[in-house]
């Protein structure tokens, strides 16, 4: 036979061998729950994590002084069973639970908590969210490198079970912060030995309800029940898989073929199918602590004039924008702090009034839009194959052209290029969004203080800054809420360096007849140890009744 044919014949032979080789992958036990988490978590180190996909996994691995209530997302006792707050609101004394352990013979101590917080603040860790701890005395100086001695930072272990925290000023949301991923307790004994690669240690002790059983990048993170967790008795599922799925269609396919039990986050389902999926009982949408808005570059003419900014805000019919493009449960927004934020009544915004808009524009020197320069709206590509940023931009362009006679150009950019332009104030209008870190108006309103790095509008207002500072010194919640509302009024009614467009919707997709324990709270946090599967319960119930018969 010709040598060539033999070579050709070996190809199907090789293919069969490969096929069999692929079969040699070790069969692992099936997980109790498979969750489609969305984008690939970049890290599960609490000190380094930034994204919500990271948080969802860390929520199961590491716990802090407080944790989130699965139903309301309010902070409830976590590793600390109780605490005292001083009268002036500046000193917190936390008492850790009895018998907390990493593993038998290794207790979780107050010293571990102090270590974890100081690690976040240590400049060598380069933690992006170190700012969450800046409310603690001397924390910022230590993080800046100005203070070299970490023992001067206001967090101390009074004994093995007591932690004392000193804050710069009363911080109404401090207990919420203690539940946040950055402030979770990490195993000092492993980190000191292994440095940056400590997450690869095996076994890896954790302070939360689950252990890290496997981590494959761009694929899956597997969690296994931690038997040493203080509340292990109430952890109902043994094995949970978090899948990183980037294509929304693939996510839905996996769910529909039974390979996934839960999908969370709207970006993980195909946008075009929302109207169809809404009809199913699996679909759950609820108010979320996130806002979509755009920024003005207030250092650039004519946007340095608040009348122009107010005119543009008044000329936009947000209800129409939302009903046209966003059917998943989003709500139009006239103010910045989302409805439902704890202990707060938001300020009243400007609403839709094209006549008033034209009047203001004329006052500012551009009657009928004459003489108004061409300007650009910057935005990045909308993730997940959608085009929402572009669609909304086109609507805005159309609305202002019609109502005000001014012309806007759209400028779509690649994400990092867009962020660089926004940082350098190299834009006229730019798209933005903000997801709150904790359930308090401050997480939104502090952004627009003159000195905040996330301001990115060039807007500086001394009255706003002073109201914010006063509010955060207040211990009386009602007085504080009133002051914050006054500040927000300046932001969304008088000055408008930003124009809110809509509030995001939280989203979970699961079958409530099979899965329980996932609740629609405003932070969209779902502690994995609260989730359970109904079928197991049914099986137990059936067995008992059989016995009784």
């Amino acid at each position, binding site marked *: 036979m*010709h040598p*060539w*044919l033999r070579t*050709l014949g070996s*190809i*199907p032979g090789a293919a069969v061998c*490969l*096929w069999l080789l*692929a*079969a040699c*992958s070790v069969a692992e036990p099936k997980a109790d729950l498979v969750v489609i988490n969305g984008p690939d978590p*970049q*890290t599960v*180190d609490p000190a*380094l994590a*930034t994204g919500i996909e990271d948080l969802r996994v860390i929520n199961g691995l590491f716990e802090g002084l407080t944790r989130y209530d699965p139903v309301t997302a309010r902070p409830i006792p976590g590793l600390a069973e109780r605490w005292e707050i001083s009268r002036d609101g500046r000193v917190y004394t936390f008492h850790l639970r009895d018998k907390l352990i990493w593993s038998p013979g290794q207790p979780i101590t107050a010293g571990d908590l102090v270590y974890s917080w100081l690690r976040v603040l240590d*400049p*060598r*860790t*380069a*933690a*992006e969210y*170190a*700012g*969450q701890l*800046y409310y603690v005395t001397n924390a*910022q100086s230590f*993080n*800046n*490198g100005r203070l070299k001695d970490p023992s001067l930072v206001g967090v101390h272990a009074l004994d093995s079970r007591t932690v004392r925290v000193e804050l710069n000023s009363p911080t109404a949301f401090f207990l919420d912060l203690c539940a946040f991923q950055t402030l979770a307790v990490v195993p000092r004994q492993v980190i000191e030995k292994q440095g*940056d*690669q*400590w*997450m690869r240690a095996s076994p890896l002790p954790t302070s939360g309800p689950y252990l890290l059983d496997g981590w*494959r*990048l*761009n*694929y*899956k993170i597997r969690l296994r029940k931690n038997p040493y967790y203080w509340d292990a008795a109430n952890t109902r599922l043994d094995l949970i898989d978090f*899948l990183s*799925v*980037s*294509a929304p*269609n*693939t996510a839905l*396919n*996996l769910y529909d*073929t039974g*390979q996934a039990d839960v999908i969370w986050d709207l970006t993980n389902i195909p946008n075009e199918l929302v109207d169809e999926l809404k009809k199913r009982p699996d679909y759950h949408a609820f108010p979320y602590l996130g806002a979509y808005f755009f920024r003005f570059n207030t250092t650039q003419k004519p946007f340095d004039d608040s009348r122009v900014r107010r005119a543009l805000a008044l000329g936009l019919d947000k209800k129409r924008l939302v009903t046209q493009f966003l059917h998943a449960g989003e709500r139009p927004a006239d103010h910045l702090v989302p409805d439902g934020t704890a202990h707060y009544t938001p300020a009243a915004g400007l609403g839709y009034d094209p006549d008033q808009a034209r009047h203001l524009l004329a006052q500012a020197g551009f009657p009928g839009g004459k003489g108004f320069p061409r300007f650009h709206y910057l935005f990045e590509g909308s993730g997940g194959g959608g085009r929402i940023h572009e669609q909304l931009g086109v609507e805005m362009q159309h609305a202002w052209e019609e109502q005000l006679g001014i012309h806007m150009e759209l400028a779509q950019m*690649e*994400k*990092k*290029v867009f*962020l*660089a332009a926004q940082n350098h104030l190299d834009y006229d209008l730019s798209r*933005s*969004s*903000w997801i709150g870190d904790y359930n308090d108006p401050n997480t939104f309103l502090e952004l627009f203080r003159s000195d905040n*790095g996330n301001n*990115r509008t060039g807007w500086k207002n001394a009255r706003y800054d002073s109201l914010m500072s006063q509010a955060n010194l207040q211990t009386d919640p009602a007085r504080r809420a009133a002051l914050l509302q006054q500040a927000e009024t300046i932001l969304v009614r008088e000055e408008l360096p930003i124009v809110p467009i809509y509030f995001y919707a939280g989203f979970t997709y699961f079958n409530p007849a099979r899965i329980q324990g996932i609740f629609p709270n405003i932070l969209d946090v779902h502690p994995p140890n609260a989730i359970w599967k109904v079928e197991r319960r049914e099986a137990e119930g059936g067995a008992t009744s059989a016995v009784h018969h």
Partner: protein
Amino acid sequence: MYFLKRTLFLLPLLLVISFLAFALVRAVPGGPFDRERKPASPEIERNLRAKYHLDQPLWQQYLRYLGGLLHGDFGPSLKYRNHSVGDIIAQGLPVSIALGTAAFCFALGAGIPLGFYTAARRGRWGSYAGSLLAVLAICVPSMVVGPILIMLLAIKLRWFPVALWGSPWHLVLPTLTLGLYFAGRIARLLHAGMLTTLHAEFITTARAKGLGETAVLLKHALPIAVLPVLSYSGPMLADLLTGSFIVENLFQIPGIGVFMVNSSLDRDYTMVVGLVLLYAALLLVLNLLVDFACAALDPRVKYE
């Protein structure tokens, strides 16, 4: 001698490529730590840059990188801060290689017989049908082929899983999606190669000598006609082995194809340079092997 020279050239060439990649990726606007939410103080950003030596001059950063390379250390990933570039490649490359090799075998296994058939049966309707198939395979992009295959074979017929990785069944649909285009290309290449070869003098001689048509086609024409396919196989294999973004994204396969695209978008400097080096090395080595094979197989080819 020629091949010895080519082999020696590999290392300096890779060095130049590494420097170009290193410099270019840092020249692009936007950095690895630019996010929608900026850190609470400029010092945090400064700490970040200091930790990864991004505040040092370019040549210093590059020398440090080269020093790491000598130890086989490609550096930490700037996006996956608990992983090193080497870790990520070690996790993903075997998967991409498995998928790529399977697609390669499929492309050759389907493309060569198809191309041979359409050339042997030229002028008859069978040849036209075969050519149409080949052209369709080339023109329909994998973004379309993939979902169609999933819809038909995975969702409707339930023969295969819709996505993910782990068993031989998971291999089939991605292989088909990835390999179909290349099967079409190879079929067309072989078809063209056969038709050209059949006009050569030595074929006329073989026929004049009284050899049967099958023998002429298989023993004499095919080995020469298949050489363009061989040349194409080198770069094709390099492409396949480093993973396909579209297929890996669609089927959620943990290969390195996704990283090749995402690392640039995320400005993960170390990851980009590591992957560029990997791809360049693969491409250079495979091209070398292909040239060597061509020289060995075709008595007419001589390199000096």
